[in-house]
């Protein structure tokens, strides 16, 4: 196998080593925060796949995150399915959702695309509220104690232990990072970027751009849903708030801040934003204003994000 972009591969490896080492240094509160950051970073990385690399700005990724949350959470809650299997079902649910929605929304472009993804996500959100008898609606469902641990290869893994959760989140993050590295730095990734830069030209060169976009959309939705399934199962909670508009906006913001179209941007953006929001959450809902201000500031002066700016100025391989 050929490794494209070796510098980036080395950087990713260094980041993974650093993340693994963190568990020996951080306090248990920080471990919890880091676990959330890793899962949300997977979500943002999935989002970035579509928004950053392929140039399709979706306002509805909460729908795929929630597809993962609900598919995995509900089979556990109602049928007592074991956690690893539920996780796979969550991924499968998100895959199906993103494939079907993708087939429809990719007929539209730019502004229409944004509105259509937003509308489908709103319909999905309202559906979770409408069927609150089964989904628990706003109150949500708390997974029973039996679903808070599982056996894997004879080991019992406890979902209430901070370290276990961190290591599982780390493992999923690592697999996602490596997977997305292979996709984005290889030939498929080039096609994604080609669609972003000039779709007509890519089509003229003989590529089926609808199919390229559909692949990007499905990968993006599935990865987002995987993050959702992990989040729901790990913290034992399934609720409508995961499907709300704000969840889509958070993925967008993490990606914008970190740098759209950079592999590590979403991780950086999620870290910065989660830390910031944690600090500000003392001021009740102040963080929504911060989100609002940042969305404007980033669009006005900082469209490339942190890593994007570094890439444009100094390190062209950082993509």
């Amino acid at each position, binding site marked *: 196998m050929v490794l494209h972009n070796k510098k980036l591969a080395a950087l990713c490896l260094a980041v993974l080593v650093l993340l693994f080492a963190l568990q020996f240094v951080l306090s248990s509160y920080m471990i919890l925060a880091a676990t959330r950051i890793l899962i949300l970073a997977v979500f943002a990385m999935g989002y970035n796949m579509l928004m950053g690399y392929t140039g399709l700005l979706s306002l509805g990724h909460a729908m795929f995150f929630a597809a993962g949350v609900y598919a995995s959470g509900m089979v556990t809650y109602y049928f007592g399915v074991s956690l690893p299997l539920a996780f796979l079902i969550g991924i499968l649910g998100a895959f199906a959702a993103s494939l079907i929605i993708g087939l429809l929304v990719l007929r539209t472009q730019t502004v229409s695309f944004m509105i259509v993804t937003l509308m*489908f996500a709103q319909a999905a959100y309202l559906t979770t509220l409408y069927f609150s008898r089964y989904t628990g609606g706003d109150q949500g469902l708390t997974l029973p104690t039996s679903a808070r641990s599982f056996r894997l290869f004879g080991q019992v893994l406890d979902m209430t232990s901070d370290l276990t959760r961190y290591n599982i989140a780390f493992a999923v993050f690592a697999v996602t990072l490596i997977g997305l590295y292979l996709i984005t730095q290889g030939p498929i990734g080039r096609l994604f970027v080609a669609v972003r830069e000039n779709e007509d030209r890519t089509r003229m060169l003989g590529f089926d751009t609808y199919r390229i976009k559909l692949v990007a959309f499905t990968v993006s939705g599935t990865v987002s849903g995987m993050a959702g399934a992990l989040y729901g199962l790990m913290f034992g909670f399934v609720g409508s708030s995961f499907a709300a508009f704000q969840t889509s906006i958070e993925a967008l913001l993490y990606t914008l801040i970190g740098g759209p179209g950079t592999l590590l941007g979403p991780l950086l953006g999620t870290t910065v934003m989660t830390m910031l929001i944690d600090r500000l959450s003392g001021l009740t809902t102040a963080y929504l*204003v911060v989100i609002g201000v940042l969305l404007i500031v980033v669009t006005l002066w900082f469209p490339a994000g942190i890593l994007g700016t570094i890439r444009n100025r100094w390190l062209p391989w950082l993509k």
Partner: protein
Amino acid sequence: MNIAPYLLLATLEGLVQASVLMLTALGLSLVFGVMRVVNVAHGEFFMLGAVGAWICATLIPGPPAVAFVAALVLAPLFVGAIAWAADWAILKRIDYNPEATIVATIGLMYIIQQTTLWSFGPNAQAVDAPFYYTLRFPWFGYSTYKFFIIGAAVVLVGGLLYFLRHSKVGLVMRATQFDRETAQNFGISVGRVYSIVFAVGAMLAAIGGVLVVPAQQAHYLMGHDPLLLSFVVVIVGGLGSIPGTIAAAILIGMSDGLLSVFFSPTLAKIFSTLLVALVLVFKPEGLFGKAGR
């Protein structure tokens, strides 16, 4: 069960909703038609209009009618000023890039919402109607103020159409909408037209908010539904088409009213969001619109 009274009530409620929706959606449609941008903060301008009406009602002494008339003038002016400032500070600087505008106006939406929460508080506030007179039907009484809403909306929309067709500013707006570059070549200051259109669009939403508040209540999150329904109306009616927007407002307002009375408001919203999505996917020119140029 006799269904007639329910049907009458649903029709009346639907008509009231359709008239407010017509005003709000026309604001969004005007902005989209002329400037080719989608303003996600449009619902917040509606909410600010309603909150403005409440502020007028609390600060201005005397009969509620005086405060109401004052609100009908002051609230839209205030909201128009905010929109003007937002256009100057944000939209002009990103050169009305369609995608960036959506992201920036989402930011604006959060800022307006939270600022209102801090200053106005989390509680819904009622405002007295400018007059009380209940029209008695055999089955239920119905506030005449709601008929006033319908009348006011029809007059305002008629006025707007007349203004667009027969005034110089209206002509300039239509010229800009038709062909931005040529308009500029003929000495029309496109930047100025954009500022005016953005402010007027916001003011229409604010008027909708002022009109609705005696029948509903002012709340800092109340902009959400009007935004959603305005989207539905503007898209179903054909992006930027004013007659299409009016027709769609009546259709959507009425059907939303009927669905809400007979089924549930949530189901009505699921239905309309899916309708928008499917119209955009399969018939992007809208149900009433002609194919785009």
